[in-house]
């Protein structure tokens, strides 16, 4: 009798274990399911609210440092506006709008950002109410940060360059080869430029820019500098890139929305058909 009861409890425990493990694995792997997006959104919304309070305290204590950084950025941007104004023959004020060419620039504050996992993400305090759409780029004056993945009413969730799921089309030098840039997998300011043709010589210190060959980022945003170059599989080169943006020291970002994205997507769909 006791043996039978013991056997039953062992079987019940094993069944519960298997059921719970399967449930957990489903939760983990169903990243494309609506339920997962819902759970993620709810989780991030809660986290965003919690982190907003925490961040405001932290922001207060780092205001001095931020002010210095903003002043420097402001000086650089003012110089750039003057430069562009002189080239275009138009007053600087018109260029200081948030829309440049086909892109709209929306400043945002980081509510939360993970840096110590393999799939790092970022939560920003701007959402659909501010005109943010998924697949918008996230940048700073120091380069590319990531891409918006999910958008809530007041917050958006993006994956950062410190995430193997994100790769960016990049160019070495202003007229060099175009290749794919992805995270190196361990450092907060390191990336790897993959699939570089062998016949292009890349020197250590060459600047890496966005290529503009996607509807997410405009061209010529500086990303970093090339470091060690090595041959892979005897047919391609791979270069380490030291990013200008250290992900360990981020607070504010700019979200870029391509105003022509729908038109480009429609054209691509039409071409496929």
């Amino acid at each position, binding site marked *: 009798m006791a043996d039978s009861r013991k056997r039953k*409890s062992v079987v*019940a*425990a094993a069944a*519960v*274990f298997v059921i*719970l*493990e399967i*449930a*957990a*694995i*489903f*939760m*983990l*792997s169903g990243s494309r399911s609506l339920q*997962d997006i819902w*759970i*993620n959104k709810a*989780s*991030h919304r*809660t*986290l965003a609210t*919690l*982190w907003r309070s*925490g961040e405001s305290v932290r922001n207060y204590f780092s205001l001095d440092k931020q002010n210095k950084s903003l002043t420097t950025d402001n000086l650089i941007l003012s110089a750039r506006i003057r430069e562009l104004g002189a080239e275009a023959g138009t007053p600087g004020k018109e260029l200081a709008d948030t829309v440049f060419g086909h892109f709209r620039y929306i400043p945002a504050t980081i509510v939360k950002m*993970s*840096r*110590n*996992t*393999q*799939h790092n*993400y970022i939560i920003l305090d701007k959402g659909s109410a501010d005109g943010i759409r998924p697949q918008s780029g996230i940048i700073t004056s120091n380069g590319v940060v990531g891409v918006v993945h999910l958008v809530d009413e007041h917050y958006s969730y993006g994956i950062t360059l410190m995430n*193997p799921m994100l790769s960016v089309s990049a160019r070495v030098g202003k007229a060099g080869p175009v290749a794919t840039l992805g995270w190196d*997998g*361990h450092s907060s300011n390191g990336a790897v430029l993959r699939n570089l043709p062998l016949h292009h010589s890349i020197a250590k210190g060459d600047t890496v820019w966005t290529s503009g060959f996607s509807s997410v980022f405009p061209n010529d945003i500086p990303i970093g500098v090339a470091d060690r170059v090595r041959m892979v599989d005897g047919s391609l080169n791979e270069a380490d890139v030291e990013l200008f943006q250290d992900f360990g020291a981020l607070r504010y970002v700019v979200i870029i929305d391509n105003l022509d994205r729908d038109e480009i997507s429609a054209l691509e769909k039409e071409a496929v058909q």
Partner: protein
Amino acid sequence: MTRRFVFTYLVLFAIQIVLANYLNFGPYFILCWFPAMILCLPVTFSTVSVLLVAFVTGFVADFLTTGTIGITIIPLLVVAYSRNTVIRMVFGSELLSRREDVSIHKQGAAKVSLALLIVSLVYFSIYAVIDAAGTYPALLVLIRIAVSTLVSVPVSLYVVGVLSPREADRWR
């Protein structure tokens, strides 16, 4: 299970959540004492109850830290399921028969450390592999498991001391 145990469990859980959110230890190491908390659950708890507690603990932890639901639940369920086996292996079946809880005072720091080493190793092995998802080199995953286990075991030993009712009585 006393009210003090529930309160201490919740406080330790909250500290772990705050720590995971605010302290960045880099990619080489994770500090986590959830396996110790599961090990310290009363021995009178059935395996099913321990599994349910582990599931809820992992779910809430994932919800409040990484947002990747499942990453803590999966290894924690394995720890919960193997808990009685570890207790039997390290402390002997007498502890289960006498329905005594795991305590440094009664079982000794060496035996408790050994049990913590086993459950932490199980937990971090699974966690690191899932978190890496094939993107880390194997050596880096192994370093992560080893460093996380070595760092977390002494902290977990302290956690066992805090959770253990005998320890509290001793200093009263």
